[in-house]
């Protein structure tokens, strides 16, 4: 068979490529770092790797999963993103690190429930940050690029200088309330309570109690209860009570640095006068709240609010997306306003502390599993950089109303316009008539960055004296069960506040080996 020069050269070239390519392509567990010449090449140095990211089922992760092709195009890597309930993430990560398998090279490290127990099983990200073979993200990854102390909260534990995770998302609690209902019923409220029905940063928990009493007694056709709380056993319940207890005298369970936590927390403060009084008052507020409060977590409380059963709900910024969706929520269409969580009532403070607008949160981080193969860990760091980058966080904010952790995004002029409904960029939606009896109640637009509506109060809430970040302790998951279980018994009338607080103290101190 005649082989012409062109065919011969083509064959030679293909053969040469096969030879070179065969040397370059290694097994996925033993990749060779390719020589790089530019930032683009640094992103592609682990081309062909396959990563697995075990994440909580959060809006940012959903948005990233939807746009993951851009990461794949940038790096040439593949990634499987598994989304689970936070408890399941904790369970699977815990089993994996105990077995030292490294099945999840990347895992979602929520500061207290996952980070505190497992941070020792995460890589120290500082070694990758100082490695010149990795690309440098826009703004970098230093403390000053993240929101106030977010890196401390999610990345640093118990005085260890190691950085176990970078901030990936956040859930900051603000008060969401129906300003339309407040305007509608203010006269009636004023006639009974001598003050207008308003919610401001100076609104105290006693004011909230009055509002709850008012709505429950009135039993209006368009709203039954003043407030939905989140008392469900577990982290939801712990955060819920913390917003109340910290507001009154900045009461904390332990006497250690709340930003970094403690491995040996020592005796707790439960059972002191302030804790007992706070629990008594919390029980009183709960008695006027939505009746499913002891079983509501953030989703349950949100459901109570968006179905119009409650006039107010303290909830996390990411829920603004659902609240503002007129197809799902009767509170959409401009009916909801967002403000700081309630302030402590000064007459309910006996420990000499301040009354503050206690704001708590969960800062989700993204960590690298130390038991994964070395090359895979390095590849994972590229995903960490991409997922926590300015560009990705901005994309998530605009796509699904995410919760960015970089200061620059919060300071962005376009984002700051979105803090306020009147100036927020809007997007068109299919018209929805909010009130079937009112033809003018048609909603055709919603804010583009819905969660940004909560950023105004959030940026005040995450600063001292309002913010409460802890308690970061290794046995956090068991502690919150003890706490919420006893609080439930008090709220249900099975124990008095004093009995419940003393029981928490006894069990918690025993848990930490305090005699």
């Amino acid at each position, binding site marked *: 068979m005649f082989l012409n020069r062109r065919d011969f050269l083509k064959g030679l070239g293909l053969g040469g490529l096969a030879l070179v390519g065969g040397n370059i392509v290694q097994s996925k567990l033993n990749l060779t770092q390719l020589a790089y010449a530019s930032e683009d090449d640094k992103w592609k140095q682990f081309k062909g790797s396959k990563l697995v990211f075990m994440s909580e089922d959060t809006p940012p992760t959903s948005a990233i999963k939807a746009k993951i092709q851009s990461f794949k195009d940038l790096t040439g890597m593949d990634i499987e993103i598994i989304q689970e309930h936070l408890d399941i993430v904790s369970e699977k990560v815990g089993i994996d690190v105990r077995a030292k398998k490294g099945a999840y090279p990347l895992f979602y490290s929520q500061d207290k429930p996952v980070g505190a127990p497992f941070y020792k099983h995460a890589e120290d990200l500082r070694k990758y940050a100082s490695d010149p073979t990795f690309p440098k993200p826009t703004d970098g990854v230093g403390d000053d690029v993240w929101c106030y102390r977010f890196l401390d909260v999610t990345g640093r534990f118990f005085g260890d200088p190691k950085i176990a995770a970078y901030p990936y998302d956040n859930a900051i609690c603000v008060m969401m309330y129906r300003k339309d209902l407040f305007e509608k019923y203010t006269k009636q409220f004023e006639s009974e309570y001598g003050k207008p029905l308003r919610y401001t940063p100076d609104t105290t928990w006693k004011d909230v109690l009055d509002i709850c009493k008012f709505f429950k007694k009135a039993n209006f056709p368009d709203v039954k209860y003043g407030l939905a709380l989140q008392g469900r056993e577990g982290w939801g319940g712990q955060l819920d009570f913390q917003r109340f207890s910290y507001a009154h005298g900045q009461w904390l369970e332990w006497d250690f640095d709340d930003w970094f936590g403690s491995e040996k927390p020592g005796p707790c403060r439960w059972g002191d006068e302030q804790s007992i009084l706070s629990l008594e008052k919390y029980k009183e507020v709960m008695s006027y709240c939505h009746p*499913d409060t*002891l079983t509501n977590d953030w989703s349950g409380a949100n459901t109570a609010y968006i179905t119009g059963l409650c006039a107010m709900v303290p909830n996390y910024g990411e829920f603004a997306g659902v609240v503002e969706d007129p197809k799902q929520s009767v509170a959409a269409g401009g009916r909801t306003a967002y403000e700081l969580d309630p302030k402590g009532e000064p007459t309910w403070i006996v420990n000499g502390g301040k009354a503050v607008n206690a704001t708590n949160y969960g800062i989700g981080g993204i960590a690298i599993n130390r038991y994964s193969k070395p090359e895979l860990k390095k590849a994972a760091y590229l995903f960490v950089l991409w997922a926590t980058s300015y560009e990705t966080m901005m994309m998530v904010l605009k796509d699904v109303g995410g919760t960015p952790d970089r200061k620059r995004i919060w300071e962005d002029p376009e984002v700051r316009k979105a803090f306020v409904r009147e100036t927020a960029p809007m997007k068109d939606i299919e018209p929805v008539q909010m009130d079937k009896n009112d033809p003018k109640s048609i909603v055709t637009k919603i804010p583009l960055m819905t969660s940004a509506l909560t950023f105004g109060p959030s940026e005040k809430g995450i600063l001292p004296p309002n913010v409460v970040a802890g308690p970061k302790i290794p046995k956090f998951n068991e502690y919150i069960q003890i706490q919420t279980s006893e609080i439930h018994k008090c709220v249900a009338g099975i124990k008095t506040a004093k009995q419940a607080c003393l029981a928490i103290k006894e069990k918690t101190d025993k848990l930490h080996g305090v005699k």
Partner: protein
Amino acid sequence: MEKIADSAVVGEWPIEQKTLFQRIQGALPFHFWLMLPTIIVLAAITIYPFFWMIWLSLHQTAMDPGEKDVWVGLGNYISLLDDESFLNGVKLLLWYFVICLSIEMVLGTAVALLINGRKGENLFIILILMPMMVAPIVVGYLYSYLYNVSFGWYFWFLKSVGFLRTDTILASAQPVLGFLPSIAFFGVVVADVWEWTPLIVLIVIAGLKGVPQDQMEAARVDGAGSFRLFRDVTLPNLRSVLLIAGILRFMDNVRYIDTIYVLTKGGPADSTKILPFYLYNISFRYFEFGRGAAVGFLLLLFIIILAMFFVNVFKKKEVVPVG
């Protein structure tokens, strides 16, 4: 004649010396050898984990890198004696299986009797079996919606007819009548009964097909009414079937946490935190594997003892002929 073997008698054929393997082979029946591969696999997946669980229960397990598990002997077991959550879990577990099993056995048997031999029996069976096909976690979500104060049908119905005096089902922690479990607990029970009564129906219907018709006819001829027929003919013939149904359901019932996980997470006020759920918390939320293994071992003992009790209760008393 030459002496061939010590045991050989002069003038007789010699006895062959068998190898150890040949002796074992001859001692064990042939079907044992056929089952051996399966036995080995089952042993690997049950016996090994069983002893591993016991080993774990005697240690305080470590989670941090570089730390080792510490031998504590019976320390994990002893600590359970004054563990309020453990004791509460045991109490609730007893309530849970007694109430669930009682309702499911009675209701399941009644439904089976109702549809057995009737026109459309097969269609009824298909419809009745449908809840059993739903994954328990989905049942949990279904009932969380049905009980929801905002829009749940069950909540609305029970409130409307005045059956429910509280404003909530799943957040109701007070004991009913002062000593029974809470309304939230009964909410979980209803979900369990809805899902698993069909299993009892299925087993009992199969058992009813085996009731000798000649005994039924003879009893009818003797003038026995429906109740006498059931008590004196059907029920005695169903004993072994009911035993199987009861044991199967009991063994599942004391392990399930799926519905509780979704509905209440063990709350409110620990009123639905049955022992298996507490076991799950200790092992997979607190990662105290030693304590969890101790609870697991005790739960296993509990199941074995109760299963033996069931067998004894249902065992037929054999009549020994006189003379």
